[in-house]
């Protein structure tokens, strides 16, 4: 077993991270021998939504997997798991990024933001969330967290986009329900709410 990762320390880390103690993580913890030969630090710390979270991360693990299945942040969705749809969009240092196509180990030093981190501490919705409610932008809602994170990233870089600029900003996010028009209305309203 990884000498730096005792079972006790691992479980403590998982509890500290607030993750659901799924059978997967417990099984990994109890079966250190299964770890790949060649040592890679697995218990890493990542900054998610302003909190530093300790989490056990496999070498090939994607950020989407870590967020969803280790940290319980299921707001980040998987539509394709191969960089085609944008449902998994999160912000990495303010840049919208496909969490399915980013290795968690590569963002150890980064600031990661997910849809769960947008509300203010008193529960107020972020202007983009508020605008998406007012414009009824989501249909099925499965692409919505990704659209929101893309929109937040866009508005941080360009607080007053034209509709065309907003359209380009959301171009990496597919909506199979075809709610693009309503998402664009939402982004333009969010820019006004600011």
């Amino acid at each position: 077993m990884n000498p730096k990762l005792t079972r006790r320390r691992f479980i403590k880390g998982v509890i500290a991270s607030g993750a659901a103690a799924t059978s997967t993580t417990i099984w990994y913890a109890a079966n250190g021998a299964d770890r790949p030969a060649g040592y890679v630090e697995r218990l890493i710390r990542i900054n998610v939504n302003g909190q530093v979270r300790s989490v056990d991360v496999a070498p090939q693990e994607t950020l989407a997997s870590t967020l969803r299945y280790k940290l319980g942040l299921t707001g980040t969705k998987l539509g394709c798991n191969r960089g085609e749809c944008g449902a998994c969009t999160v912000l990495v240092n303010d840049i919208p990024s496909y969490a399915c196509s980013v290795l968690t180990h590569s963002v150890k030093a980064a600031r990661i933001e997910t849809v769960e981190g947008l509300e203010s501490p008193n529960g107020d919705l972020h202007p983009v969330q508020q605008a998406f409610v007012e414009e009824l932008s989501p249909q099925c809602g499965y692409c919505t967290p990704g659209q929101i994170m893309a929109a937040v990233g866009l508005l941080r870089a360009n607080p007053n986009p034209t509709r065309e600029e907003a359209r380009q900003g959301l171009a990496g996010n597919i909506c199979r329900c075809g709610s693009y028009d309503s998402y664009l209305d939402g982004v333009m309203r969010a820019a006004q709410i600011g």
Partner: protein
Amino acid sequence: MAYMHIGKDFVPPDVAGKVTGRIKYAEDYSREGMVYARLLTSPIPHARVVSIDASAALAMDGVFGILTADDVYPDGEPGGTGLKILTNEPTLVGEPILALAAVDEKTAESAIAAISVTFERLPFVLDPLDSLAEGGPDAYTGGNTFVFREGFASEKWSRDQVASFRAGAEPTAEPQQQFAYGDLEAAFAQSAFVYEGSFTTAGYPHMSMEPRSAMAYWENGKLYLHGTSQSLTGLAVDMAGIVGVPQEDFVFINEATGGGFGQRARAGSIPSMAIPAKLSQKINRPVMMRISREEEFTIGGARQGFQGWLKCGFKADGTMAALDIYIISDNGGKGGGGDAFAAADCISILYQTEAMRFRGTAIGSNTGHRGAQRGPGQNQIAPIIAPILDKAAAELGIDRLAIRLLNTPQNGDVGGPQRQPLTSAYMPEALQQGAALFNYQERITRSRQRNGSKVTGIGVGQGYHNAGRSGMDGIVRLMPDGRLAVHNGVGNLGTYSYASTSRAAAEVLQMPWERVDVITGRTDRNLPVTSPQDGSNSIFTNTRTNWGAAQDLLAKMKEIAAMDLGGAPADYTVGGERIYKISDSSTGMTFAQIAQRGLQLGGKFTGEAEVPEDLNDFTKLSVSRLAGSALMGIFHDSRHNNNPPGFTVTFTEIELDTETGKYDIVDMVTIGECGTVMHPQGLKNQLVGGAVWGIGLSGYERHLYDPQNGLPASTGYWQSKVPTILDTPAKIRTGWVDLPDPENPVGARGIGEPAMGAVSAALTAAISDALDGHLFNASPITADMILNHLAGVTSEAVPLAQNNFRG
């Protein structure tokens, strides 16, 4: 009519969960002790499983068990076509053969790789016409088609017959299905312009954004299934049957669904949800089955493709006098779909064709399984007919809007093979409204104008789908605290109709929306049965049931008020969360008081007696569980009369680049004609969402299979091109007619499906316009087809290919 709720925007209760990420889809749940299932799927398009050796896999650490077709069908697999839970005779690549559960997905994948399956290869076919030709392979073991109540059959034409059809001639073989009305021969004889030609429309996958993952566990003999569905109770009742569990022991949990588009309406189209249920039962652990995008492609369904021929006659004044249409529809690997019939029915209604003959035959291919996809049939034919209508208009010297106004349905019209009356139809109004918003008279003057390599095309399209059912149930409760609970079995796939139809009940009781709780999301919340939520029917169907249940509640409230406060029930009305005497508003009771009084009285007031006998079984179960909890309104909806239609009209201007074959949509106006508008924002979303689907149908979407090995070549979003935001206009302008339908208590009908047809029709018409009236007779019309045409690389006859590139 002045309504309190109908026609007004509101915030549906689930929107906050959607923008915060809190709402849960099936894959977002976990359960203590949960293990993970992976699928072993067929690598070949048609085969028989000879043997399965899973011994090495089962001996691996962390593996809990496997589930095979022999486990789920101990008495043999069901006969006929249709998706199965698991199968020993796959008829398409990707069909699930077995499932394996392990401690995590990596272990499950490794274990699956250690399973040895011996397949016997069977003949396969990808193009229905190849199967139809004498000596051609059949997609299924029993033949290439399945005849209702008769079983498998092998439909064969002579090779000459197939070749002549491929070359564009009228098919001469007997069809499986046909209808006719009017004197076709006489109608053609009266026609001043007759068009004849063949056409194709492509099959393509639904590709809902949420893959159909599911999680199941058993507790105290009950099955809890977290799944995905567009119908909730409409699907759950049959899913209990597929799993083999009594309805009362089955809890289906489905707060939100990441898209359905027809493929998650009925249990039969998503039997894969039974896999974690059965596996969990077998290994006695919660099982999560995550479905990948590739798996969603292969088991997620597809639209039927058409290979057809038609002949259409127009009188000198532009009246569509005659239509003769013959369609070979692609039934894919698992059969299913009545799209061809629906396509013909649509033309009959949308253009009020005076005489008509439809002939159709459905043939299997070893490709994605087919089933309903947004406007199945109606939407494939809409983009084929629109440019033909424009050709007729040009030949006869009639304006393109005028020829549509002449042929369009209106109040009092009939349609389809039964010549069934429409409940109402305000299409002339919709066309005029759209023309005014689009500024058609000015815009049409820009038709075919050139600007360098760009040329302008103008298109007008119409869409239709029947948009309402009846015969379902409603349950509402007035709670002791005076709140109204509307139990709604409608699925939550993004239309918000579960909420907007609940407002019909709030309307009856004049109840503020913030005092209404919509009870939905899981079947143990005691929901009524609704129809499968397909066919654009929810708005019509469930405003009827909720309105009816609320009326039943109101009648009971009036009866109690008259009993306690004097007078007759008719002396009372409601408002301000009170029931009071019309003649003396100070004599009355609050809603909380009357709910409490109802509880004291019990019996029929609380669902403990005099429950309507004709309720569906699952509704009876829900009512029995709720009995005695509140003052209840219960309703079984009787059947409505005639055909409630959903109509749309679209006007568009495109700029087609003759150098690239691509086009920009410069403007698009789309108008809904769906009776009284229930929820303007929801309607706008259906119109713009349908528009994006229409853009995909006419310009991009098709699936592809490798002809040599039958492998799908388009399992991702990238290869099965779904429109992105950049393929759609920066603004789609919407509007609606908003005139009431007499067969619905608030006048409403559905819209989801026709929203797509009109847009696809307008776009193919605009493309044809930009290319001087050239008819591709196909959907999609891709950039390479446009470039080939411009380069003179074109054939008069459409090659009629299916599931691969044309030609």
